[in-house]
């Protein structure tokens, strides 16, 4: 059973339209696999959240053509797996005379609206491929790599299901060098693994080089010592701090990272590495979104160098530009794939290069 089939089964379950056999099969799965039990709980929670939200949101009626932002993943297709939100012309999206749909904007990020120009924000979002939990139930919730093509590949060996958030072993921490960073604010559900041993996540421990940080159901933020750089690790995420005198390195195994990066010294950029790509940050503000078989890097300030892991092709993406990353043989999407909204800007699809190293960024 694939992800769509399972999600449809869950939808039927809560709708009351599942057959008795389907319900029995689902209950056997719940009883036999704690991950599926957790998925059922999440599905119930999502159902309730939507009911609660819609009963109080008072969302205004949509006037056809009035809204200028769409989430392209919304299936308004034909139910045959072709829905990608762009629809079939019966959606009320009035086409412009040139045949294009009205321009659509990705909402500006709060970071983009901030005036500070000495600290830049970088958001890296590795969204778990939908339904992946059922296919590989023993892996952690979020699986998608940060930058380039997520779909189910994790960096380290497959992990067991979510570790109990309040079961951090109280063991003496292995001796470590001076902390690189420390957690700010709430640290509920955060575990830090050092030398294979789970240590407490309180500020006294700090985060040292080669520490692995894991979050549970809520995000956690840590700050690098001696500077304004802040890293927020999203829920169900896993990150390793590494790097050397040449710069900082974040190895994102799965999940989401938002980075607020103070301008780095020349030759000492911050590097975000996933199994599929690396992103070099000198001083930028951009967003990276990963969903299904694609990753999109969209820059609103500065320049980001993106390296596609599959073939080593590189590209520098600057403000007002974006690029999709996928398998080189997949071509470039002519419209946003499922899970991606429309954005404005210049598509740099034609500028990938395996031969020419872009100029402009050191390192």
């Amino acid at each position, binding site marked *: 059973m694939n992800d769509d089939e399972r999600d449809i089964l869950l939808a039927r379950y809560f709708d009351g339209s599942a057959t008795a056999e389907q319900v029995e099969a689902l209950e056997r799965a719940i009883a036999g696999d704690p991950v599926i039990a957790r998925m059922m*709980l999440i599905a119930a*929670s999502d159902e309730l959240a939507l*009911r609660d939200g819609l009963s109080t949101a008072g*969302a*205004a009626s949509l006037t056809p053509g009035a809204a200028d932002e769409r989430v392209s993943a919304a*299936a308004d297709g034909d139910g045959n797996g072709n829905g990608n939100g762009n629809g079939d012309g019966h959606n009320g999206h009035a086409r412009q005379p040139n045949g294009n749909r009205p321009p659509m904007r990705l909402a500006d990020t709060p970071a983009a609206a901030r005036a500070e120009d000495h600290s830049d924000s970088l958001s890296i979002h590795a969204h778990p491929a939908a339904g992946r939990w059922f296919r590989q139930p023993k892996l952690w919730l979020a699986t998608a790599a940060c930058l380039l093509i997520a779909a189910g590949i994790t960096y380290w060996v497959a992990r067991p299901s979510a570790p109990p958030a*309040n079961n951090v072993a109280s063991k003496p921490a292995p001796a470590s060098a001076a902390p690189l960073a420390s957690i700010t604010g709430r640290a509920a559900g955060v575990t830090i693994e050092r030398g294979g041993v789970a240590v407490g996540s309180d500020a006294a421990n700090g985060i040292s080089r080669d520490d692995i940080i894991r979050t549970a*159901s*809520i*995000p956690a933020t840590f700050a690098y010592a001696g500077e304004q750089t802040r890293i927020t690790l999203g829920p169900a995420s896993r990150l390793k701090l590494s790097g050397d005198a040449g710069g900082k390195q974040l190895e994102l195994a799965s999940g989401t990272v938002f980075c607020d990066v103070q301008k780095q010294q020349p030759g000492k950029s911050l590097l975000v590495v996933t199994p599929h790509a690396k992103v070099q940050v000198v001083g930028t503000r951009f967003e990276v979104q990963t969903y299904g078989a694609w990753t999109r890097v969209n820059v609103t300030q500065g320049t980001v160098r993106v390296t596609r892991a599959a073939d080593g092709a590189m590209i520098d993406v600057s403000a007002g530009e974006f690029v999709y990353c996928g398998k080189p043989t997949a071509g470039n999407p002519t419209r946003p794939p499922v899970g991606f909204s429309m954005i404005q800007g210049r598509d740099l699809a034609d500028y990938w290069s395996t031969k020419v190293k872009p100029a402009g960024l050191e390192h």
Partner: protein
Amino acid sequence: MIDPQTEHRRFLDHFLPVRGTLRSFLYAATRDLHEAEDLCQQVGAVLWRKFSQFDESRPFSAWAVGIARMELLKWRDRSRRAARSRSMSDDAIAALAEAAVESAATPIPEADGRSAALKDCLNRLAPRAREAIERKYRDGQPIKTIAEAQGREVGAVEMALVRARRALKQCIEQALLRTEHRDRVR
């Protein structure tokens, strides 16, 4: 003498963070929103009645889920006798209860911006998808009714709802994460 107001406040400090998980657990097991709500209220009443017996050295969430599970089993036995509906097996309920305990151990704080994020994200859906979502979750219509209203096959509406929910969830999570990040770095 314990001040009742203080005691009540103390109880709510424990109960409110896990109430969401209890509702989800009960709804997952009953598939009936009204039954789940009734049961949740019942569980709350039992927990309050027995609060003086609660050992604060132990996690409240585990105790609360245990009480919820007992109330659920009582409801299930009543339902079976009344032959109202097929109800969940013991093993499945036990598995859901374990998942609920684990989930309740780190309750997700209610995000202030969740409603606004939902509204904004809903506005981004394509019209037919949005209509399907509103019919289903605001108006409580079954999928078959939505399909008839939209002149589509049931399978198409099922898929449309699945995808719209995924899109909404992703959109809301991104919006909240951006807000969370912004609040933390201030």
